[in-house]
């Protein structure tokens, strides 16, 4: 789960940067960047944080 989370977080950045190369439209680059940020955040809070929450000290 941690590996998947890390891959998602990095994937979000790659998506944002891919927008620079795939299109010259400022609007579309903005969409790519926003989608990339959302993907990275989902990796942090949806995967990495969930992994640690499942093992949290107050759940033991």
């Amino acid at each position, binding site marked *: 789960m*941690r590996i998947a989370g*890390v891959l998602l*977080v*990095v*994937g*979000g*950045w*790659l*998506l*944002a*940067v891919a*927008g*620079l*190369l795939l299109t*010259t439209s*400022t*609007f579309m*680059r*903005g969409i790519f*960047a*926003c989608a*990339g*940020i959302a993907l*990275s*955040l989902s990796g*942090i*809070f949806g995967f*990495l*944080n969930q992994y*640690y*929450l499942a*093992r*949290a*000290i*107050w*759940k033991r």
Partner: protein
Amino acid sequence: MRRKHVHYTRLLFAVLGLTAALSVVAPMRVKAETGSTTVTGVTAPASADIAAKGDPGAEMTGTVSDVTIADTKQGLTLADLANQAGQNKIAINFVWTLVAGFLVMFMQAGFAIVETGLIRAKSANHTMMMNFMVYGLGLFAYWVSGFAIQMGGSAPIANLGGVYPLNSEYVLNLFGKPWPLFGMKGFFLSGTSYDVGVMVLFLFQMVFMDTTTTIVTGSCAERWKYSAFCVSTIGLGALIYPLFGNWAWGCGWLSQLGANFGLGHGYCDFAGSGVVHAVGGLTGLAVAMQLGPRIGKYNRDGSPNAIPGHDLSYVLLGCFILAFGWFGFNPGSTLGASGNGALRIGSIAVNTMLAGCTGSFAALLYMWIRYGKPDASMAGNGLLAGLVAITAPSGFVNSLAAVIIGWVAGILVCVGVEFFDRVAKVDDPVGAMSVHGLNGLWGVLSVGLFADGRSNYGGSWNGVAGSVKGLFYGDAGQLVAQLIGIATLVGVIFTLSFLWNWLVDVIVGQRCNPKAELAGLDIPEMGALCYPDFQLKAQDYASASSNVGSPVSSK
């Protein structure tokens, strides 16, 4: 006396003309020839006169007699005057940048007492010592490699005399575009980096990096093993922070998004909402997630308990110290007070003031309306949030925008603290992730919205001619550049911090053992209590969740 004034006026015009002419002929670092026209007819006040009367009105101090003459046989020449004018400009900028750096260094004291005030007395020595040692550890790491990676290819920086020795950047050519990735000059400040301008730049950049490292200690307080903190801090100062610093400030790929991809002026971060604060906040999030919450922070059903700090007066005094230091942080980031639009320092200082003020006000009102009382620690965090948010846009926006940015930051910090506390359940004893992480990102974004196109730092920024303009002033590309900066912070910097601290966890172990945490970290980790004469509340497992504080509720 009148005749002397005429001479001085002529002299002034001659110096101005010569300086303007020299500024066209690059590079500036060539001393003007001493064989140029001799200046005559300028009389200096007699030293005997000054000795007899003193100079209470400052009319005889700082005259032609203070200009350094290269060749005493030839006397005063226009070349002497031009060299003196150039040196004066750089001297003003050196002094300004150094004093600003000293102010930022003093922010360490502010961070130390804010964080210590917000945690329990039983771990005060531990928290204070983390804040104390980030200075030494961070400085050492930055001297070894951090500065070179960040600024090794940043020349020329005109306000500091060029810093020409920092002229080597590793550039990856990919997809037909150059991607400058890291600097390669200035390791150990050795070789040609032994240069006066480089030293000034090092000091100023070092205290910024130190601010980043001290943010992490707040979000990880009361459960971070001291040895793990030391190793983690070295990695942040030596590699992670400098990488993003290079991409934003050292002529790296983010700063070149304008020149290479036509996105406004590239990623713009005037004083470091992203470089300093978001990097610190996101690293704090990465480590705090791995550490887990303090024992007693959450009940078995997941509901949070408030764990009040032990000294609110520390907290508010620390906030004031930080607000004072921020006048070094933002106006100092012009790297000078003379030339290339640096006179904008007044506007930058006022923006800084206003955003801090409205941030504090907004947070106070939010808490008052939502919980029925004006909350002191959140008012302090609101002040810091406003200051964090205005850090990136301070050099590009007007005062109305500063007020709006600060206001939004004040609300955002309160919402952020509630989100991390109740939804994400990441324990952050001082609210660093909201203050620095969330508002750092907001600050970066706000450049892309509010930059008004009125600033002019030498006619261009990041190699793109003209002034920085945000979406509201007609440049949507600038907003996209800022969004890509945010994506990089969240996608790359968070990941690097996460992986580095995962490694530290595997090798050193990040978290203290539970007994030490319950007893307070002062004795188990540091060997001495911060307050030996106080009766401290140590806890056992059974009472950990019941005696900590009242459960958090929204009303």
